[in-house]
């Protein structure tokens, strides 16, 4: 594990606009040393003085301009306590390991839940740039909560809508019919478990997030242990992985998903 310094850095919000049920923030930070990747997240201080835990948000885009800094795109739940354009915002990150891209053009299925749809869409765009055929599955329990479907449709070969209960069937059918050789999931751990299971049944690779940025009860700093997941294999029984440090992107076949529907 690296012991590189992970410092909170002062950024500036340059845009805060509505995006369907969510808000889209653009935050300028001092230039990042390494480009951000889909699957990474940022940690922001608690919104209010009476809150203890920081906030975690998926990164859904980044671009760096020499001499200007790095602009992070964040699609976040509309909590009513977000900084306005022009205000400062301290962020730690982008944190963690993002999704890996296949080295050859293949067919991929990307399942993303709710607000994580923006990160899923970004991953889809990256995959397309790498020559892959990409099918997006947007999972939401309320039709209002799919993120920016217009842009999603532009950046993928197909977009499919479902809810959490229907996600297993949708992903399995799609992966089967398209002959996808890699399945991705970003969002709640339950969705990751589902996609990992589908991948195992089809004997294909899966990369999934082991924690849900934005879920309550997370520190995101690797210190509280609430995100820990058990591994299937390991040097000894009871070996765990800490997604906010070792992930959040994990290989689906390495995690013991028992207890996740």
């Amino acid at each position: 594990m690296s012991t590189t310094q992970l410092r909170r850095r002062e950024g500036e919000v340059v845009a805060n606009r509505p995006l369907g049920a969510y808000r889209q923030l653009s935050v300028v930070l001092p230039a990042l040393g390494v480009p951000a990747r889909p699957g990474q997240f940022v940690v922001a201080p608690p919104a209010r003085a009476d809150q203890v835990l920081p906030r975690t948000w998926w990164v859904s885009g980044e671009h760096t301009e020499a001499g200007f800094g790095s602009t992070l795109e964040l699609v976040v739940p509309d909590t009513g306590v977000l900084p306005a354009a022009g205000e400062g915002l301290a962020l730690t990150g982008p944190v963690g390991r993002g999704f890996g891209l296949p080295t050859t053009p293949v067919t991929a299925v990307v399942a993303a839940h709710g607000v994580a749809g923006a990160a899923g869409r970004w991953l889809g765009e990256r995959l397309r740039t790498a020559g892959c055929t990409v099918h997006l599955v947007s999972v939401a329990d309320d039709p209002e909560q799919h993120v920016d479907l217009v842009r999603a449709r532009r950046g993928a070969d197909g977009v499919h809508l479902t809810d959490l209960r229907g996600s297993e069937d949708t992903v399995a059918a799609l992966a089967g019919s398209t002959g996808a050789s890699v399945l991705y999931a970003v969002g709640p751990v339950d969705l990751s478990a589902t996609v990992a299971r589908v991948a195992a049944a089809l004997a294909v690779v899966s990369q999934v997030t082991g924690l849900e940025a934005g879920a309550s009860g997370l520190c995101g700093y690797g210190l509280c242990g609430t995100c820990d997941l058990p591994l299937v294999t390991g040097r000894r029984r009871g070996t765990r992985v800490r997604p906010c440090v070792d992930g959040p992107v994990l290989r689906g076949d390495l995690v013991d998903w028992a207890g996740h529907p």
Partner: protein
Amino acid sequence: MSTWVPRVTPAAGCAGSGRELARFGDLAVLDAVLLGPVGLPGGAAPRSTLAPSPSGLVHRQAPVLPVDHVVDDLLPWFRARGLRVVCAVRGSTVGAVSDTLQRLRRSLDFATVVGVEIDLAAGREETRPAIGGLTSADPVGSWSADPQACLKLLAAARERLPRDLLLQAKLGGECPQPVAAARAAVGGGARALVLSGAVPALTADQFLVGPAVAPVTLGLVTTLRAAIAAGRVPDVPLVAVGGLHDRAGALAAHSAGAAGIQVGSGILSDPETLWRVHDALADAPPPTRDATAHRTGATTPDEAGDHDGH
């Protein structure tokens, strides 16, 4: 003789395995890093959970760091970096705690351990004979609820450890009679008391922590300080933990009589809080009337942390 205690450490369960915390600042500037809870790997330990509540968190205790993992992987990491470690040990029976301590002590890297903290807020189990000569373990509340049990546990721990190694007992908001439990813990061999403002919440294994409980922490420090002044508890240094999130909170606990501070939920809120509190205390005036005694003639482990062979 008075005892050295580290001024500022993370609280048990809030430093990960140490490596995660090292990403946020220099651990070497701290007097010690607190690692834990360390214990025997149990069966299916419940996941730790954090539920936000106003100005606080409801925290379900983290599963222990298995002692074999600590011995094989973590202590060598700390030792290689010259860091000093206080191991927080949790167990539900005297046997479990003794066994954990014995395995720690057998570690080749035990020289990096400058202290041991025994968690008296943890649940205790009593072994009773059952049908057919078998025994059954029944939960009987926290260690700190029974002063006799505290005394026995600390005495057993003391026996397993080098004589001059810091041994501290942690108790808090779950304890019905803090003065009696503290006296028993010191009687058993504790050389410092860690007073935690964490209060039981929702279910037996959940505690309210965070700034909401800072007044509980200060109350415990004040109560114990008074009991020490009245001679009801032997004079040992006090360490405060619970809701001390900033300079002001840390200094308040310090002037109430705490020689040391542990930062828990404050680290989860912003890991750099640990170093801010450290800096605040570094230039704070001595805490209490007997603060000088704590600093002069204290049994401070030498730089190599070598305390074996005594």
